[in-house]
């Protein structure tokens, strides 16, 4: 009985990866859009999939596995960005130390791996990244992943009405963020 359970679990895990594998490219692009760094994006996808594998038992089949992994990946990228912001702050302090003569190891990702985007795309993604944990997944799922409201609702485990209202809030916030960056009026058409 127990052996059977183990076998089912093992095959389920193997199936999970085989099911997710075709979406690898999409996931990588999503991570790259947020992180603007190739190696970071690779790492993010890998770690998000490992996280998904670990919490596979808690996955509810209300949403598709892909949308569920997308949600995990977006949250993971958000965490990585927060960490990098903290690291940058520390590096500022490290620069001060270095100026005093203390050796500080360089922990920044290599600049060669950074990607180049158009100015508009750069501003857009910066504004999206500024939205915060509550609104960012909504915008990315809706416009980057072209997901329907129902799919978003099931992935985020929210009501459809809540998703719609939050989406409106997210859009108006994003508008304001873009306006801060000078993308206003004419740019919006």
């Amino acid at each position, binding site marked *: 009985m*127990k052996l059977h359970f*183990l076998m089912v*679990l*093992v095959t389920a*895990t193997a199936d999970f*990866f085989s099911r997710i*594998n075709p979406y*690898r*490219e999409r996931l*990588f*692009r999503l991570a*790259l*859009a947020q992180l603007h760094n*190739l190696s970071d994006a*690779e790492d993010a*996808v*890998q770690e998000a*999939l*490992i996280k998904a*594998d670990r919490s596979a038992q808690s996955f509810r089949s209300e949403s598709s596995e892909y949308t569920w992994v997308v949600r995990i990946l977006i949250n993971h990228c958000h965490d990585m960005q927060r960490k990098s912001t903290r690291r940058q702050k520390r590096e500022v302090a490290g620069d001060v130390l270095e100026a005093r003569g203390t050796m500080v190891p360089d922990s920044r990702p290599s600049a060669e791996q950074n*990607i180049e*985007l*158009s100015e*508009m*795309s750069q501003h*857009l*993604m910066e504004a999206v990244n500024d939205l915060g944990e509550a609104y960012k997944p909504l*915008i990315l799922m809706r*416009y*980057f992943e072209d997901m329907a409201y129902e799919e978003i609702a099931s992935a985020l485990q929210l009501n459809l009405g809540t998703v719609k209202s939050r989406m*409106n809030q997210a*859009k108006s916030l*994003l*508008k304001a963020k873009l306006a801060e960056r000078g993308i206003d*009026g004419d*740019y*919006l*058409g």
Partner: protein
Amino acid sequence: LTGITLARSARTPPRGSDDRFEEFLKKQFAVLKDELSVYPLPAKGRVLEFGKPSRAKTLPAWSYGLAAGVLIAAALPIFFQLNQKTAEARQAPPQATAAQSAADIDRPNEGANQQAKPNEQNFEGQESEKEVKQGNPRKFAAASSNKNSDESSKAADASPKLAAAATTRDQHAESTESVRNAVRPDEKKDAMGGANRPMKDRSPAPTVNSQAASRFERAAEESDRVADAKGITTGAVADSEAMPAAAPRSIAIDDNLTRAKKKEINVSERQELEKLWKEYERDPQQFNKNAKRRARLTALLDQFKMRSRVARMRVLDKKKTAY
């Protein structure tokens, strides 16, 4: 006209409306995706390289409990066994000391008897021979001292080193004799002057002297025996005897009594420290005048590792110097 404008407005949303923004977002995200598609995908298998899921992950919770139970079952008997052994080891030395102390208690009585009846010394000396046969090692040592002197003379004939050893032994014997003589006048005095006196009137000092003498005698006899042994085996007795202070033979046993004593000392020292500290805090200048007390306080603070107080002392001393 109104219909046409309405139709136009339906096709092209007004500036700044949500629909325009929606369109803008859709367009811009499409551009973004195109831009991102330029970048190569990671090599196949680089991102997704998952090994087989480990067994540990799938182990049920009860298996950990079982493992813990087995470990405890194996470890508990060993623990109890070790505990028992340590308890036995602790009990053994106090027994030895108890036997030793009992013997010590007996000895002063012997000394007192010697003091009270000096004429019986010869009788006891005769009896010691009998007790040797019965197996009393202490008496045997006393009785064999004469034999040892004979043996030492033989050793002196054997080699010059052994002769040196013999001379040192003789010196030792002389010193022992001098101690005996030092004790005897009191004994004689006591024997002469206190013969008619009752036992209660006698002062305790001679008793202490006699105890000390008997102990010293015993120590001397033991050292004789050791000297004999060394002289025969190594022949370096002269050197060892020439040393001013011999290493202590007894080993400090950490029994309950000594522990209690240490605790008492600790408590008393702590009290002393508190007292000195109070005095110091009351008037540091006045306290520092007495160098001995000051030194004692610092020593006690070091002993009890009171760094905060040491720091405070430093501050107070600095203040004093500042004023």
